[in-house]
């Protein structure tokens, strides 16, 4: 009895090696730097959560469906600048709504392009979404002419954005509450609805999904639309936090989102995984960044660390399946 228990503990460690590694690092930091657990720092960490969880949440759906999406860089950038530009003509509510819908539309467009060409392997998807990303980013550049758009310059009120970006409810930032609501909804969507199950099935076995009678193309488009919607929300969260939008503000979000999803334990091969695991990944990656700041590592070393974690996480994820 104890032996099986031991085995299952060992098995858990084996399955979640990266996760455990980061947890150890966090504990070490907490011991080395007592300020790490101070209220000020924890508050700071909660704030840093901002846009990344949304992007990672959307990416989870695409990865569970067995694909990948590099275009969120372009989507986040384009939605951000368009939203700021629309505050004056449409008012803040309208701008917010159009921004989020634009994100969903761009995601849907990705799905449409991919299904039209019949892109099925990760390579094809990777390159086409990269191409889409440069198209979106170019549109953002043309729209802004490389200028930084500021919320403060708009003539109408932009209180929704400032509330999202800097207000707390108790100690919890408003944006985090919004995220948790969406997280629960998305979790239920993935687990309990037929469409959510279809996405999982598509990632598990495309041929089986087709033979069972699911519409593979529309399921694929659905996964990408959700990712676009979430990227739109991420863009709004980013805009609220920094109060400016540029045509390159989405840079690096794609690798960070993939990093969070993989560290959480969702496999890149598709079919398995959950949005709750991604949430765990996001928290750990954010804490990791905070730890490295506390320990005084340079930003460049942090990039090296993130890259290493990404490569090792994918490698170990791959070994699991063997």
């Amino acid at each position: 009895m104890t032996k099986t228990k031991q085995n299952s503990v060992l098995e858990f460690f084996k399955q979640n090696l990266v996760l455990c590694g980061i947890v150890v690092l966090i504990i070490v930091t907490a011991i080395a730097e007592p300020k790490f657990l101070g209220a000020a720092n924890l508050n700071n960490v909660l704030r840093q959560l901002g846009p990344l969880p949304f992007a990672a949440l959307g990416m989870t759906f695409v990865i569970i469906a067995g694909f990948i999406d590099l275009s969120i860089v372009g989507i986040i950038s384009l939605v951000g600048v368009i939203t700021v530009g629309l505050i004056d003509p449409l008012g803040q509510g309208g701008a917010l709504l159009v921004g989020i819908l634009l994100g969903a539309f761009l995601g849907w467009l990705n799905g449409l392009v991919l299904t039209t060409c019949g892109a099925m392997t990760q390579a094809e998807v990777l390159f086409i979404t990269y191409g889409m990303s440069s198209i979106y980013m170019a549109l953002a550049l043309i729209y802004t002419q490389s200028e930084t758009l500021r919320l403060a310059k708009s003539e109408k009120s932009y209180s929704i954005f400032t509330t999202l970006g800097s207000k707390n409810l108790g100690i919890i930032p408003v944006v985090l509450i919004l995220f948790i609501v969406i997280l629960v909804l998305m979790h239920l969507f993935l687990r309990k609805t037929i469409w959510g199950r279809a996405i999982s099935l598509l990632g598990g076995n495309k041929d089986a999904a087709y033979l069972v009678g699911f519409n593979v193309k529309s399921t694929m488009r659905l996964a990408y639309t959700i990712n676009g919607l979430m990227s739109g929300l991420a863009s709004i969260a980013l805009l609220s936090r920094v109060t400016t939008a540029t045509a390159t503000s989405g840079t690096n979000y794609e690798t960070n989102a993939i990093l969070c999803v993989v560290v959480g334990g969702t496999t890149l091969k598709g079919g398995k995984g959950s949005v709750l695991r991604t949430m765990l990944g996001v928290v750990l990656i954010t804490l990791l960044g905070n730890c490295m700041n506390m320990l005084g590592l340079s930003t460049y070393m942090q990039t090296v660390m993130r890259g290493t974690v990404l490569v090792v996480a994918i490698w170990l994820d791959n070994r699991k399946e063997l």
Partner: protein
Amino acid sequence: MNAKANVNKVWKVISKQKAVIAIIALMVMMLFSDTTFYTAYNWLDMLRSTAVLEIVAFGVTVAVICGGCDLSVGGTLCLGGILAVMMVNNGYPIWLAFVVALLSGAVVGFINGFLVVHQKTEPFIITLGMGMLLKGICQQLTDAHPLTCTSLDFMQIANKKFFGGIPSLVVYMLILFILFFCLLRFTSFGRNCYAIGGNYEVAKYSGIKVVPIKWTAFVISGVTATLAGVLLASRMNTGSSVYGDTTGMLVNCGVVIGGTSFAGGVGGIVESFIGLFVIQLLTNCMNQLGISGYAQTLCEGILIVLIIGADCFGRKLKRERV
């Protein structure tokens, strides 16, 4: 029926030679514009500007033919240039700088090969992560500042002119072109690469040492990327961590545009050369016509989506026929 067969035949020719068709279309278009497009100076300049990317592409082609892919070349290129400049600035001889830089590329390629070939991970995302890691290392090495080289001899390497006016970079590119062409066409290594890319299992059971050969392909890709990096550093007289940001994606797209497929087993150096040249030609045409940089990014994105999309579409038709 007959008409349909003809359409299929035409489609097949077009999809095989899409890069050549794009070149002809661009050249015809330029006939009607009053620019300096049709001058020897312009064409030599185009060849010189594209030389660095072409050299990277030669190595990547070998990896792609084996059924792999190397997105880390951007980071590798950067690393090679920075290491060479650092060595030369510290008073080491230039040949030693070359050796050290190429060795670093070999090490990166070796690690990529280990992860992709030995551990059987998906090459696309793992090399993307590797590129991010290398970028971080480059930034750490240079503190994200451009590193100017103090040696005139080092600068001369890529800025000389041979045979009364041919830029040395073009000469190096041609030498490497012939070298790689022979490697793939006339050696058993090259033939084995095609066999491995064509069908991994069959190649394995035919007695080809699949793992070492594919592994070597990744090392070659890393080494050529660093070689290109050193030449770029010599051309610019600086090593900087901003070089190679888009190289990985651009080169891999160019290779596919030429007709080397990610499925492996088809294509070659000539195809890759043409594929990369199309991108350069498009940029040159747009520069000549005075199109803004933003619109150029847009056109590049559209080109990538269209050509890789067409590649996928062709394979989809093939699948449906079977």
